[in-house]
């Protein structure tokens, strides 16, 4: 288990097939009315193809900023992000995004929300409809195609958002605290569902969360970020067998990972216990 240093994260993936390379990325938000804010400072790590990587960190550490940078929606101040072989300067074509807020379009039915990409990219809706229906069925939403978002519960809405992200069979999935707004029970179910979906075709996933145990449960690797400006404080490989079960969280191996990450947080002066 590695606990400090940025150079080590690069070592960790030497030789592995890097799908996403984040190299020396810095992000400064400048504004005319306020002092410039450095959100990220010299962040470097790679994500291998098919790897599930989580980022945990205290709130305001720049986790979401990092995701926006990888998505290509905002530019880096310094450093570069490479997906496959090309440097990110605009949104990568084969990307799926899920946010904390489900961002469903209220005027579209469940099916039309999942098919949003078809409309934006001018693809054939009729060809993609069976895929969308199948995705909904895989996430337990069969029969809800004609419902409107306001008729669904929070967990169901977020499932629709996940289906929407998966429609184009993206090779990279970015998830920014997707279950942060859900109640504990729904959240556990969503963790199980996400694992099941991920195990079916092992997409490359960058998953942002503030829940240590959620990160350990889902990930191949957990990257811990320091408080602002965000730096990589630890890069931890999670060697637990899959499919993982909720009961594994009570086992000592799981507990050791969680404790290690928590200690890293405590080394920042967070999570004080008096």
């Amino acid at each position, binding site marked *: 288990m590695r606990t400090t240093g940025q150079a080590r994260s690069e070592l960790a993936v030497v030789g592995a097939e890097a799908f996403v390379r984040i190299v020396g990325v810095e992000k400064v938000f400048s504004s005319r009315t306020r002092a410039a804010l450095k959100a990220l400072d010299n962040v470097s790590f790679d994500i291998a193809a098919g790897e599930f990587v989580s980022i945990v960190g205290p709130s305001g550490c720049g986790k979401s900023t990092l995701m926006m940078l990888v998505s290509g929606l905002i530019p880096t101040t310094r450093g570069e992000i490479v997906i496959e072989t090309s440097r990110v300067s605009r949104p990568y074509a084969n990307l799926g995004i899920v946010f904390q807020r489900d961002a469903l379009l*209220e005027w579209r039915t469940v099916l039309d929300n999942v098919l949003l990409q078809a409309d934006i990219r001018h693809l054939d809706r009729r060809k993609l409809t069976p895929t969308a229906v199948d995705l909904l069925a895989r996430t337990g939403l069969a029969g809800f195609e004609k419902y409107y978002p*306001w008729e669904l519960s929070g967990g169901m809405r977020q499932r629709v958002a996940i289906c929407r992200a998966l429609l184009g069979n993206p090779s990279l999935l970015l998830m920014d605290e997707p279950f942060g707004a859900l109640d504990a029970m729904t959240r556990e179910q969503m963790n199980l569902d996400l694992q099941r979906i991920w195990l079916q075709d092992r997409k490359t996933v960058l998953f942002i969360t503030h829940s240590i145990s959620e990160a350990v449960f889902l990930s191949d690797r957990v990257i811990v970020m320091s408080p602002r400006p965000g730096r990589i404080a630890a890069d931890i490989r999670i060697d637990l067998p899959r499919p993982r079960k909720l009961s594994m969280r009570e086992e000592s191996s799981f507990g050791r990972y969680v404790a290690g990450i928590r200690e890293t947080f405590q080394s920042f002066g967070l999570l004080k216990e008096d």
Partner: protein
Amino acid sequence: MAMPSVPAGTPDAAELAPLGSRASSSYLYPLIATAVLFAVWELATRFGNISPLILPAPSKILATAVDHFPVLMRMSAVTAYEFVLGFVLAAAIGLPLGALIVYSRPVEMTFYPLLVAFQTIPKAAIAPILIVWLGTGIMSKVLIAFAISFFPIMVDTIIGLRSSQPETVYLVRAMGGTPYQVFRHVRFPNALPAIFGGLKVASTLAVIGAIVGEFVSSDTGLGYLLLVANGELDTRLVFACVLVLTLLGLAFFFAIEAMEKVFVRWHVSARQAEAAASGE
């Protein structure tokens, strides 16, 4: 799954049990309130020793309206033409201008302060000038109706277009969407509830605009008839004019609301479901 129960079309015993069911009470309550108001009014004028010159009985007003039905209809047609045209103009200019202000910083900086300044001018004060410019015909009334109803449409368009959740915009951009697609698929549909809010306010203001114009100078329309009746101390006809005008305004407002139900069904239904849930 919380699904709103859709009331069946057949009027069974449950629906006739009046105050309990929501669907029928939405009509029943205002009907009862109006009936009580008119009953009190009728009784007050009959037994309260009120001069019919000051306040005629509702029954007398209704009788007068029936007597003058043809002229009231003719005048209504003129007034309705004025406020509908003024309103359509206000929407045709207010909507695109609101969108331009949202999308272009220079347009906003150039026009927005002027438009706000124009809004603060009482339209009744400039009505005489508009009549000098455009004559005593219909166009001056159309323009006053337009001037008075344009601002809420524009402001609500701006508010609506600016109220998109950032994530929905990111999402469409991450799918490679163009700014036009962001507008078409996110910003505009998301703005529709606010736009309809503006249109509904504007629909009532347009009626006021048309009447103000007719008051200042006119030889036709309900406002004109009202002034004439007032001059002749025909209080019954004055009230009959007000009655017809109220009905016209109501009809126009509900026409816009019916359009809202068609175009923004998702929002109307969600709002109703929310109201029903909080009422339980």
